[in-house]
C-alpha cells in the first residue's frame, strides 16, 4: 500500500484508570488511500474509535498513553509533531464527523458561526468562509442556507444536523474524512440519504474516508475495505464481501450470524383470546398530533411490533397505554377495563399486569439501587412476597432466568455491561409476573451480538410464560426476528398492519416499501443489487 494517504502502524494505546491499565488497542495497523473508504467495524469496547482519536489528537493524555506505533501522514509521524502543528492539520487536512450531532455541535452558537469557524480557525478570511459555508450548506441539501446559517443546532432535525456536520467537515476540502458512527442515531431512511451524500461528496472531492461503525449494513453499503476489531485488536481485514461471505475469525463469524433479520418468521396463534383492544386512541401536544386515532387488538402470547421513524407516534402509543401520558380520547380495553379512564386503585392492579422495558437500561435503572432492590421494588409497591428469604431466592431465580447469576444480586447497575443491564430491566419486569410487556426500543442501544441474545431471551419468555409483547422498534431486522404481527406507523397513524411475513415479503403500502428499501442489509451483494435496482428505476 505505497499510495496510502494515512497509515496507522502498530499502534498500541493504554488507558490508565484507577482500576488499572487497560489496553485500549494493541498493535493496530491500517491505512487508507485517496478516494477509498475504509470501515472499522466493531462493537462497543472493541477500541474501534481509538486509532481515529489518536489520528486527531483527541485522546486525553493522561489517562491515555500511546505506548508504541506511528501514524504517518505526508511523511510525518503525527504522534511526534508538536500540538500546534497537529492543530493546524486538524480540520484542514483531516476532518472528522461524529455520532449524535446534537451533542457534538455547540448548542449556544449558530450553525453558521460554527461552520465558518472551521475556516477562520485556520486563518482564512471570514467573508470567504461565509461564501463557502453557504455553498456547502446548499450542497448537503439544507433548504434556505442563508436562514439556516442563523439557526441553532436544536432547531434542526437529526439528519439535517448530520448534514451540517458534514458541511462543516468539508469546508477546507480535507484529504481525509473520519466519520465516527455518522448514522447511528438516525432513522433508516435518513441513514440511507446521509450515506448516499457521503458517497457523492467523496466522488466529487476524491477524499479518503474512514468510517467507524458497528453496523454491518453500513459496511455493506459504503465500504471498500473493512477491518474488524474486537477487544482492541484487529481480527480480520478484507473487502466487505470477503468478510461477509467468508469470515475467517470466529468473532467475525459470530458477529455476522448475529445480524438480525435472517431468522424464521413467526406466525400468529389465531386462537388466542384478545387481551387488549385499543380503539381510536388520540393524543395531541399543542399543535402536534402525536396519535390520530389508533386502533388494534392484541391477543395473549402475541408479539406485536410497532415500527416507524422518529415522530411516528410509536412511543406516545406506549406511554398513553401505560398512563404515563393521558390520551385525549379513545379507549384501550384491558380485560374489559378501560386503561385510559380507570381510577388509581384499579390502575395499581393493571400496573402489575403490564410491565415496560425501556430503551436505555443505564437510565431506566436507578443508579443508587442494588440489583436486589431494583428487582424487589415491585413487590414492595404491590405488597407481595413479604418473606425476605423467599424474595432473595426469587430474585436469584429471576436473574438466572434472564441469564445472570446469583452473585450479581448485590451489585449496582454501573457494574454491568449494557446487555446485562437490559437483562436486569427484564428481570425487574418479570418479577411481577406480567401478562404484557411493552418494550420501547428495548434492544436499540445494544450491540448486535447482545441484541440477538436479548431478543432470544424475550422470545423464550414469550413461549414459556405466554406473555404478550408490544415491541416498539425502528430496526426492521430485529422486528422481523421477534414479531408475529407488525404495525407500521407514520405521523401518528397506522399505515399498515399485518402478519410479519406479509409486511416483509409483500408490503402493500408505498411507505412500508420505502422503509424496507432503506433498511440496510448486512450482505454487500444484496445492497449492491438494491443500488442497481434503484439506479435502474
Amino acid at each position, binding site marked *: 500500500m505505497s499510495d496510502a494517504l494515512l497509515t496507522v502502524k502498530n499502534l498500541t494505546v493504554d488507558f490508565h484508570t484507577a482500576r488499572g*491499565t487497560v489496553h485500549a488497542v494493541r498493535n493496530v495497523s491500517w491505512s487508507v488511500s485517496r478516494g477509498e473508504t475504509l470501515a472499522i467495524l466493531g462493537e462497543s469496547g472493541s477500541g474501534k474509535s481509538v486509532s481515529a482519536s489518536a489520528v486527531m489528537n483527541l485522546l486525553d493524555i493522561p489517562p491515555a498513553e500511546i505506548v508504541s506505533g506511528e501514524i504517518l501522514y505526508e511523511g510525518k509521524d503525527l504522534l511526534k509533531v508538536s500540538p500546534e502543528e497537529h492543530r493546524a492539520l486538524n480540520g484542514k487536512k483531516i476532518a472528522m464527523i461524529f455520532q449524535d450531532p446534537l451533542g457534538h455541535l455547540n448548542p449556544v452558537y449558530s450553525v453558521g458561526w460554527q461552520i465558518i469557524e472551521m475556516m477562520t480557525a485556520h486563518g482564512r478570511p471570514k467573508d470567504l468562509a461565509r461564501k463557502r459555508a453557504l455553498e456547502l450548506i446548499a450542497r448537503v441539501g439544507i433548504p434556505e442556507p442563508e436562514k439556516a446559517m442563523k439557526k441553532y443546532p436544536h432547531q434542526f432535525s437529526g439528519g439535517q444536523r448530520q448534514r451540517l456536520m458534514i458541511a462543516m467537515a468539508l469546508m477546507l476540502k480535507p484529504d481525509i474524512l473520519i466519520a465516527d458512527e455518522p448514522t447511528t442515531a438516525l432513522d433508516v431512511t435518513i441513514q440511507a440519504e446521509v450515506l448516499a451524500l457521503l458517497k457523492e461528496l467523496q466522488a466529487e472531492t476524491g477524499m479518503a474516508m474512514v468510517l467507524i461503525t458497528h453496523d454491518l449494513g453500513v459496511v455493506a453499503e459504503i465500504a471498500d475495505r473493512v477491518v474488524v476489531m474486537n477487544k482492541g485488536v484487529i481480527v480480520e481485514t478484507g473487502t466487505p464481501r470477503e468478510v461477509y461471505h467468508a469470515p475467517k475469525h470466529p468473532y467475525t463469524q459470530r458477529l455476522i450470524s448475529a445480524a438480525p433479520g435472517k431468522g424464521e418468521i413467526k406466525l400468529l396463534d389465531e386462537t388466542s383470546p384478545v387481551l387488549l383492544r385499543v380503539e381510536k386512541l388520540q393524543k395531541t401536544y399543542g399543535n402536534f398530533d402525536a396519535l390520530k386515532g389508533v386502533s388494534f387488538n392484541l391477543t395473549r402470547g402475541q408479539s406485536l411490533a410497532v415500527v416507524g421513524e422518529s415522530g411516528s407516534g410509536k412511543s406516545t402509543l406506549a406511554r398513553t397505554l401505560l398512563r404515563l401520558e393521558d390520551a385525549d380520547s379513545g379507549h384501550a380495553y384491558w380485560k374489559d377495563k378501560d386503561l385510559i379512564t380507570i381510577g388509581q386503585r384499579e390502575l395499581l392492579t393493571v400496573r402489575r399486569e403490564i*410491565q415496560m422495558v*425501556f430503551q436505555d437500561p443505564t437510565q431506566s435503572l436507578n443508579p443508587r439501587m442494588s440489583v436486589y432492590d431494583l428487582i424487589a421494588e415491585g413487590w414492595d409497591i404491590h405488597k407481595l412476597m413479604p418473606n425476605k428469604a423467599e424474595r432473595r431466592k426469587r430474585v436469584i431465580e429471576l436473574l438466572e432466568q434472564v441469564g445472570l447469576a446469583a452473585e450479581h444480586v448485590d451489585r449496582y447497575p454501573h*457494574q454491568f455491561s449494557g446487555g446485562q443491564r437490559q437483562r436486569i430491566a427484564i428481570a425487574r419486569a418479570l418479577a411481577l409476573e406480567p401478562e404484557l410487556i411493552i418494550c420501547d426500543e428495548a434492544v436499540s442501544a445494544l450491540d448486535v451480538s447482545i441484541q440477538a441474545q436479548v431478543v432470544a431471551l424475550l422470545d423464550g419468555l414469550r413461549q414459556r410464560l405466554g406473555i404478550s409483547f408490544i415491541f416498539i422498534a425502528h430496526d426492521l431486522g430485529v422486528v422481523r426476528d421477534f414479531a408475529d404481527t407488525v404495525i407500521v406507523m407514520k405521523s401518528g397513524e397506522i399505515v399498515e398492519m399485518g402478519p410479519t411475513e406479509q409486511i416483509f415479503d409483500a408490503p402493500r403500502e408505498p411507505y412500508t416499501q420505502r422503509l424496507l428499501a432503506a433498511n440496510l442489509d448486512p450482505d454487500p451483494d444484496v445492497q449492491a443489487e438494491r443500488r442497481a435496482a434503484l439506479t435502474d428505476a
Partner: protein
Amino acid sequence: MAEVISGPQSTVADKGPSLLSMLWRDKLAFSSAIILLVIIVAALIGPTLLGDIATQQNLRGRNFPPFSLDRGWAFFLGGDSLGRSMLARLIVAAHSTILIALGTVAVALTIGATLGLVAGYAGKHVSQIIMRLADVIMSFPSLLIAVVVLYVLGPSIPNMILVLAITRIPIYLRTTRAEVLEVRERMFVQAAKVMGATHTRIILKHILPVVTPTLVTIATLDFAFVMLAESSLSFLGIGVQPPGITWGLMVSQGRPYLNTAWWLAFWPGLMIVLTALSLNLLSSWMRVALDPAQRWRLETKRKKNV
C-alpha cells in the same frame, strides 16, 4: 473508544474496600475527617471537661501571649481579655458553635428540601406559591428576623438556630426544586411509575437519593456560612451574647484587640476556617464515595481486566 468494561466478570470483590480504607487512601480527606472528629469530640465533652477552666477569670493576668508553657498547657494558645485560657475556651465554644451550625443546617435542609421536593413534584400552582414564598423569605433581611425573634422570643440557642435557619431555607428549596424538576423526568422515575409506585415512594426512594449529594455539598458549604453569619450577628450585637460562647462570638469579641492581642480573634477565626475547609474536602470526597457509580475511583488499583 474503548470503555473500561465494568462487567461482573471484571469486578473482583462485591463491595470493594471499606469506606474507612478508602478514606485512608485520600490523605487530604483523611486529615479533614480527623480534624472534624477532634472538633466533634471537643464539642461533646468539652463543656463538661473544661467548663471550669474556660470560665476561670484572672483580670490581672489578661491577654496572656500564646506559645508559652509558663502557665501550663491551658495557656499555650494564650489567655483572653479576662485572663481565661484560650485553648479551653476554644474547646468549650465548639459545643455551641457546632450545635448552632448543625442545627441551622439541619433545620434549613429539612424544611427547604421538603418544600423543594413538593414544589418540584407537585403541580404548577403549588410550586408557584412555594417559590414566591421563597422569594419573600429571600428579600426579608436576616437582621430584621434576628431582631424580631430575639426581641419577641428572647436570645437562646434554639432561637439563634431559628433565625439563621429561616434565612437559609430558600437555598435548599430552590436547589432541590431545580434538581427534582430534572430528576423526575428521568427514565427510572418513569419506570417506577409504570410499576405503580406511589408519589411518596417515588419522591423518597428515587428522587431524594439522587438529590441528596447536591444537598450535602450545599450543606457543608453552608456550615461555614452559618458560623460566619452567627459571628456577624454577634458583631452587630444581636447574636449569641456572653456568657454564651461560640467561635463567632470570640472572633467578634477579640476584634478590638486585633492590634494589641491578635490571638483573641485569630484562633477562633482559624477554627472556623479549618472546620469549613475540612468539611469541604470531606464532602467532595463523600460525594464520590457514596455514589456507587463513582466509588471505584477511590478503590485500589486493580489488575487490568479486559
